[in-house]
């Protein structure tokens, strides 16, 4: 108590000053319209800033959920686009059966296991046959070829990555339509080899390589990568090195594409072999 009184006695001038100055500032802030507005704006500016940063943080923490929602929405929209854009090639559709008009079915999934360092790389996604995934479905990430489903369990599927020496894909050069076979030579995780392009074809660095759709796995026209360099080996064909569009070290959300007319196509083709 005594020390408190001593303290008050020692700083009484300061206390009186602060008290009077406080009254003056209070009068200033409340009595004048202009100052009142400025004070309120200032306080609001501070609280807005704090609230904004809180909200930003919250948004950031929710990004994972948001990504998932967006990816599912994308799939729903792609399914709808597939239904709407696929032109009916038959004149005899009497019933509007949207399933028959749609050729490709999209499912989104998340990569939960992945490797790029082996010679035969696979990755695992978190959707299985219960979610409609089946063997020989195509996997794309960010609209670029990523792999092919090779095995399914109830809730998981394993896909063979492009970075697998067993992976073969029919691709073509978008500018001139010549097609060849794309495979991986096991060296760099961002480069693949396109062979069987004849040497009379003009190839340029930067040309887009896309899928042909001949295999009935990948839809036509999905980008694989761009020509990085090409050389003439042997007599007839180029050896084209392709920069893959997918970065396999960071694939996360992928799109599994099933061809609903694949069996029909294969059955028909098998009759003539």
């Amino acid at each position: 108590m005594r020390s408190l009184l001593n303290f008050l006695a020692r700083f009484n001038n300061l206390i009186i000053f602060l008290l009077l100055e406080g009254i003056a500032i209070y009068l200033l802030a409340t009595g004048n319209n202009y100052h009142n507005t400025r004070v309120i704006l200032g306080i609001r500016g501070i609280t807005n800033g704090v609230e904004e940063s809180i909200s930003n943080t919250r948004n950031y923490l929710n990004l994972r959920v948001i990504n998932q929602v967006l990816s599912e929405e994308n799939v729903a929209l792609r399914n709808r686009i597939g239904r709407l854009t696929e032109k009916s090639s038959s004149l005899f559709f009497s019933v509007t059966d949207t399933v028959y008009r749609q050729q490709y079915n999209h499912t989104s999934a998340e990569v939960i296991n992945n490797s790029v360092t082996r010679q035969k790389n696979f990755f695992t996604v978190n959707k299985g046959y219960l979610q409609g995934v089946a063997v020989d479905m195509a996997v794309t990430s960010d609209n670029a070829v990523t792999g092919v489903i090779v095995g399914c369990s109830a809730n998981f599927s394993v896909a063979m990555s492009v970075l697998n020496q067993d992976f073969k894909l029919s691709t073509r050069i978008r500018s001139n339509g010549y097609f060849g076979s794309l495979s991986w030579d096991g060296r760099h995780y961002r480069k693949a080899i396109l062979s069987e392009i004849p040497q009379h074809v003009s190839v340029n660095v930067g040309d887009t390589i896309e899928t042909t759709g001949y295999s009935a796995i990948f839809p036509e026209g999905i980008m694989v990568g761009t020509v990085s360099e090409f050389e003439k080996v042997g007599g007839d064909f180029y050896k084209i090195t392709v920069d893959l569009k997918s970065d396999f070290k960071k694939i996360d959300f992928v799109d599994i594409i099933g061809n609903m007319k694949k069996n029909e196509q294969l059955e028909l083709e098998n009759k003539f072999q």
Partner: protein
Amino acid sequence: MINRILRHIIFFILLILLQVLFFNNIQFSGYVNPYIYIMFILLLPVEIPSWLLLLLSFATGLIIDFFTGSPGMHTSATVLAGFVRPQILTVLSPRDGYEPGASPSMLTYGFRWFLIYSLTIILIHHTALFYLEVFRLSEFFRTMLRVLLSSLFSLTFILLGEFYRRGK
């Protein structure tokens, strides 16, 4: 003693009237507003208790605020001036200290001393006042120019008043 208090009261009323009736109507080009009522705070006796000085500053500012219709503005600037006055007096104290009962005026301590003393307090008071008036930092240098020019004019008028008192 009573005589001295009475003289201060008359001086106070005179300054308020001068400020309100005359100097508040001076405004050269938006830059110069002399505020001479601070002279009352300047000339209060040296040994006045700090709490009384603060209360008198508060009252002075409040009265000016009533007349100018700007509650709190002059009050807070003048209270600040009253708060720093004892410190400035300590810093500027003559070699053999202040005489008892002396008023910090030009009559007692000379022109140079009074110039430094009054300029310091006027600058502090005007700085607080003008920045509180604009209440934003976006026109910082324009406000500073206003502070300097107005301080110069206030100082001139206060010095004139002091010369007049000495001449009398």
